[in-house]
């Protein structure tokens, strides 16, 4: 499957550069404004959070952000509308939706996949749908050329890794610690070894996230991983400092990541 994700990671590899993946929550503040501004601030890939009432794998920052977004009236349809609006202005930056199963299931796996494709979405991370349960969702997405991106974690041993990377596409998201989003990062050397393992098993680029907040951490991880994901810190910066606060942080993080291998 070739889509914007494949192209973007190929470009990054060609420049021997790690990528910066920025996560933000749809509907929390002027999210359309932030979404539109992220590529210029240095985001190579964007993860757009779909708010859910019961975000079981998220820490306090993203939980609170999701509740604010829902309170402000955001829905899955609204999130897809923001993606479509973004895609009108930017035809190159890969856009990945991230969230939980129920709103998607409620819309219908197929209907969601079609609507997401129409909105110019390139990938989906569905936190609570593991490989054992994703057959219908994956089939629906594949038909529309959307990559189902899986998570590998420190608890994913070699046996399980084979299951996790089978039928996956785009990139693999390596969750650097056991824990919720926003908790501390793992030890960088261990993360490096895990990245190599996941890369070898999947043949796909590996992005590392969960708990990265500071440019220094991002830079250290970028020496070993294909991309670094930052979520909670951006969500907090957006909440506290609006679009300028969030893009300011993204610029610092992205330049640290982009400079890591120089």
């Amino acid at each position, binding site marked *: 499957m070739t889509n914007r994700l494949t192209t973007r990671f190929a470009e990054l590899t060609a420049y021997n550069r790690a990528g910066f993946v920025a996560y933000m929550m749809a509907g929390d503040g002027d999210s359309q404004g932030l979404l539109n501004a992220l590529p210029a601030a240095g985001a190579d890939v964007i993860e757009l959070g779909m708010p*859910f*009432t*019961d*975000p*079981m*794998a*998220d*820490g*306090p920052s993203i*939980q609170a952000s999701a*509740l604010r977004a*829902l309170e402000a009236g955001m*829905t*899955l*349809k609204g999130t897809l509308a923001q993606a479509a609006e973004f895609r009108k202005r930017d035809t190159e930056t890969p856009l990945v939706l991230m969230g*939980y*199963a*129920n*709103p*998607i*299931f*409620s*819309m219908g796996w197929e209907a969601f996949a079609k609507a997401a494709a129409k909105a110019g979405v390139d990938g989906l991370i569905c*936190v*609570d*749908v*593991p490989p*054992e*349960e994703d*057959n*219908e969702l994956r089939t629906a997405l594949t038909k529309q050329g959307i990559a189902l991106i*899986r*998570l*590998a*974690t*420190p*608890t*994913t*041993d070699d046996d*399980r890794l084979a299951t*996790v990377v089978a039928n996956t596409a785009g990139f693999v998201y390596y*969750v650097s610690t*056991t*824990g*919720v989003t926003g*908790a501390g990062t793992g030890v960088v050397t261990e993360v490096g070894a895990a990245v190599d393992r996941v890369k070898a098993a999947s043949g796909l680029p590996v992005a590392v996230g969960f708990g990265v907040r500071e440019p220094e951490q991002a830079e250290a991880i970028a020496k070993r991983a294909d991309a670094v994901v930052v979520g909670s810190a951006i969500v907090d910066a957006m909440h506290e400092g609006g679009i300028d606060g969030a893009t300011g942080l993204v610029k610092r993080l992205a330049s640290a990541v982009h400079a890591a291998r120089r």
Partner: protein
Amino acid sequence: MSETASADTRPNALSAWPDIDGRFGDFGGRFVAETLMPNILELEKAYEAAKADPGFKAEMDLFLTDYVGKPSPIYFAERLTEAFGGAKIWLKRDELNHTGSHKINNCLGQVLLAKRMGKTRIIAETGAGQHGVATATVAARFGIPCTVFMGATDVERQAPNVFRMKLLGAEVIPVTSGTGTLKDAMNEALRDWVTNVSDTFYVIGTVAGPHPYPAMVRDFQSIIGREARAQMMDRLGRLPDACVACIGGGSNAMGLFHPFIEDEEVRLIGVEAAGHGVETGKHAASLKGGRPGILHGNKTYLLQDDDGQIIDAHSISAGLDYPGIGPEHAFLHDMKRAEYVSATDEEAMEMFQLCTKLEGIIPALEPSHALARVRDLAKELGPDGVILMNMCGRGDKDVPQVARMLGVEL
């Protein structure tokens, strides 16, 4: 449908589910974050091994009799029968269990399993606090540190149980995220588990969560129905016309129903909490007022809006205040093997007082819901009928709340 369960791996008896994928028909499954998948698969293996081990069963049985006080009796509620003016009402007295509810049947099983698996820390979620108390009790008995997550709203309305848990040595963490009730406590317990995967055992308190929990909790709770079925045969020489139980997540109901599933002549009736009334939107009746969705590890009926966002449940009873229901109930509902009805806050309050006055049994607010539908059913079945209701908990924990509602200062 999952791809691995081919037609010939599907159980053909209704009582033989789940299939190998942890599905009850289309419900159930394992919808958890990847971090937890290895744990859940490990748990499934460990549980299968324990089930096959006579040593595990012997240890369970010993503690069930000497510590929990099993078997609990069945009791002919003569004065309620008279008051309702119809079928004979028999109560399965699981409120007489140690700690005052059916919850300990399951906690004992899971904590013994945790011990077998070498886990050194126990976590649990709780609504009414009964599951928290039961877990803290068994954890105390086996010397395993225990942390209980409880919605901040529930901490307030179930204060006596919070203090009991603390006396038992458990750490009680009030959960303020979301609406501070049972579903939020479960989210927080799952977050803790994702963080402390290697040493921690999560004791889920009802027939919900990812596979193998719904099947495992049902198995541990099935002692209710197994005992009651044998006791009915022994005392009356017949099976009841109907088994009735209240439903929060559905563990006491599933425990009562399961041994009767193949007895086609026995009606199985689950009573959900209707709160202010199902038509008001302020209720906890997932089957009556919800539709299928995915939450807390399984596919089942959920209270949700058009966007698939979870709607808060409402019930006077903290133990029923949950926007979902165990996947096996969703299955029995769709297969029409069990019937699901509901009772309001007001009806539960009325039954709480009536049962106390007539039988000298203070029921928990949860089974008080079941009593309201037993009243109707008694009339429907008439004097020849026999109803077996699970008195799944005693109401001591609810006394302060009921007093408050009746405007009495303690």
